[in-house]
């Protein structure tokens, strides 16, 4: 194990995969000479040269589509889209092409492509640069969407994504790049499509992904200390496929669930998780499933407004309290632990 930042884990994994497989190349805006807007690709141009680390024009549709076409011929491109907001410019290529090519042509061409892109609000970047729109991609069969929350998962899921023969949208988060964690030395890929139970508990299941997996873990720690609650935390890690069995297994044990997401509530990722719980664990629920999500507004610039719109630890604690209060379970818990 080595302790490193999420950023370093991404950088080191890209480098290792490029050393391992010469079909891996990087494309994106400002990833070479400028070393990336968030410096994930620092030093890689110097090491691998322009052939394998390509600064592209500002043309998301063009270079993402070119990466898809290169993947059809067997290269394994890793595209960096500077933020997920800009991926909308490449939506046609990702949704109408990357996701369709394998199926639409009867399995004759694979698209081993990774699109790395960060989401994330809370940086005072205003409405167009703060969105969490991974849902748009998680909606689409043919794409795989992963959202690591830790440096270890960043490494293991990036390895999995690069070695996978399907297009993978690899969701990063601006607020996670400087977070630290232990990262294993070996290069074992994670299994796409599997959530992680990052904390076991019996009182309630808290479900999050990406940055919100950390918020969920923090809430669980705080409520253990303040209320003696024993909360189970699930980090979804994979948004498509969604690991429904892990969610259901947990809720069958805890009988209550709160979902934490920093996308918008209506039609969001949490809605799908809640529907899953309704389908698979309806008879086990003691309380309605709650979702804590971003306020349904274009995210404002001004700090107090932005902070108010984003889900906070306190917002989640309130939702957990209300969920357990509704069935009288928090009081029981405080009583007998």
């Amino acid at each position: 194990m080595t302790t490193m930042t999420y950023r370093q884990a991404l950088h080191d994994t890209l480098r290792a995969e490029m050393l391992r497989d010469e079909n891996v190349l990087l494309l994106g805006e400002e990833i070479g000479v400028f070393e990336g807007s968030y410096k994930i690709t620092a030093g890689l141009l110097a090491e691998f040269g322009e052939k394998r680390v390509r600064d592209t024009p500002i043309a998301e549709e063009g270079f993402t589509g070119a990466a898809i076409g290169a993947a059809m011929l067997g290269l394994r491109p890793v595209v960096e889209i500077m933020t997920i907001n800009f991926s909308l410019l490449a939506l046609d290529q990702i949704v109408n092409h990357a996701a369709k090519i394998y199926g639409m042509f009867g399995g004759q061409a694979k698209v081993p492509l990774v699109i790395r892109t960060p989401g994330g609000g809370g940086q005072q970047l205003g409405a167009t640069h703060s969105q969490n729109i991974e849902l748009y991609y998680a909606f689409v069969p043919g794409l795989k969407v992963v959202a690591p929350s830790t440096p270890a998962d960043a490494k293991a899921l990036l390895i999995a994504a690069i070695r996978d023969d399907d297009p993978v949208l690899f969701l990063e988060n601006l607020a996670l790049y400087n977070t630290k964690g232990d990262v294993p030395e070996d290069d074992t890929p994670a299994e796409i499509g599997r959530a992680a139970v990052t904390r076991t508990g019996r009182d309630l299941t808290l479900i999050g992904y990406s940055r919100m997996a950390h918020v969920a873990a923090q809430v669980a720690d705080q409520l253990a200390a303040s209320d003696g609650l024993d909360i189970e935390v699930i980090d979804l890690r994979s948004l498509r496929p969604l690991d429904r069995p892990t969610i259901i297994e947990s809720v069958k044990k805890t009988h209550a669930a709160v979902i934490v997401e920093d996308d918008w509530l209506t039609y969001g990722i949490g809605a799908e998780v809640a529907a899953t719980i309704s389908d698979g664990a309806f008879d086990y629920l003691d309380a309605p499933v709650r979702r804590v999500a971003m306020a349904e507004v274009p995210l404002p610039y001004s700090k107090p407004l932005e902070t108010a719109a984003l889900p906070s630890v306190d917002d989640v604690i309130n939702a957990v309290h209300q969920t357990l209060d509704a069935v009288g379970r928090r009081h029981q818990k405080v009583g007998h632990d």
Partner: protein
Amino acid sequence: MTNQVNAPRKATGRSAAVKSVKPATATPAKRAPRVKVAKRTPAEVAALTEIYRQMLLIRRFEERAARSYTQALIGGYCHLNLGEEAAVVGLLSALAPTDYLFTNYREHGYAINRGIDPNRVMAELYGRIDGVSKGWGGSMHMFDISHRLLGGYGIVGGQIPLATGAALAIDYRGGSEIVMCTMGDGTTNIGAFHESLNIAALWNLPIVYVIINNRLGMGTTVEKSSAEPELFRRGEAYRIESARVDGLDPLAVADASAKAVAVARAGRPYLLEVVSERLRGHSVVDPAKYRTEAEVVQLREHDPVVTFGAKLVRERVLDADTMAAIEHEVTARIDEAAAFAEASPTPDIATLFDYTYATPVANDSRRLPGQPLFDPAPLPDPGEDQ
């Protein structure tokens, strides 16, 4: 700047400028030196005859497709290459078998001319298991990796970045193949066209972009959609060599294509505009009411199969007997394709989930509509966990 005009600068307007469009039969003088009767060797005669046969094969295939469509044997949209036969045959004549071809959704003729068995192209139209895309693609999405036809794309302009990326992969590996990417005139207004040309020029990619300019989007003219209606000139903005050629003349197209392919093989992109005709509506169901009667009459004069056949007869390459024999052979071939398609089975429903992912993945959904996410669960034990 090396842009040049290979063919008479045809006006691209349908109504205002149609008179200035020279019919193909009016330009033989330009090509006369190559088609003098006295100089024909048997090999040349065979080659010209084969060009005619290939054009006729596309013609009869497309006519049959239209018939099958109206008989509801073919579903979805069905866009035909009628009027484009000379362009198809001329363009593809310059490609090596190892080169790659990307097209838009009007591609049946390209598939056949690339050497794909017409049986399998027709079977795809019929949605059958023996179709080139196993019945998953249909008219707009023909794909055959063995013939390096990398699609048939239904989204206007979607194929252009992909083709550019295929050229990137060739360049990355130091290969000698090239990519040809066809599109319609309306496509040159989409962002993907400009982004791709810019990338190809910056990175010196081995690709020929081909604009099939039939002067109509669906019904909107080039003049109404393109501020620079001389579409090949759009290459100038990217310092891409470009040319325009008369798409009704298969030999002129073949020459222009050979030149374009040579440039691409030397590692530079090329933009070729082929001025063509669309003999019928945008798709089979379009009656093309936006065309005047005069235009319809002119279209018949511009029919490339008829024009080229008449020219070969006039120049004594073909006689009536040979033409009849070709007609007979081609018709039989198309009948066979239709019979093959009709006899081919439809795909098994059990294969519905086989092509979502190439790498199998945990928790992939494989449910038909209405199937529950979870098997009905036993009720919880009231004593458990309370």
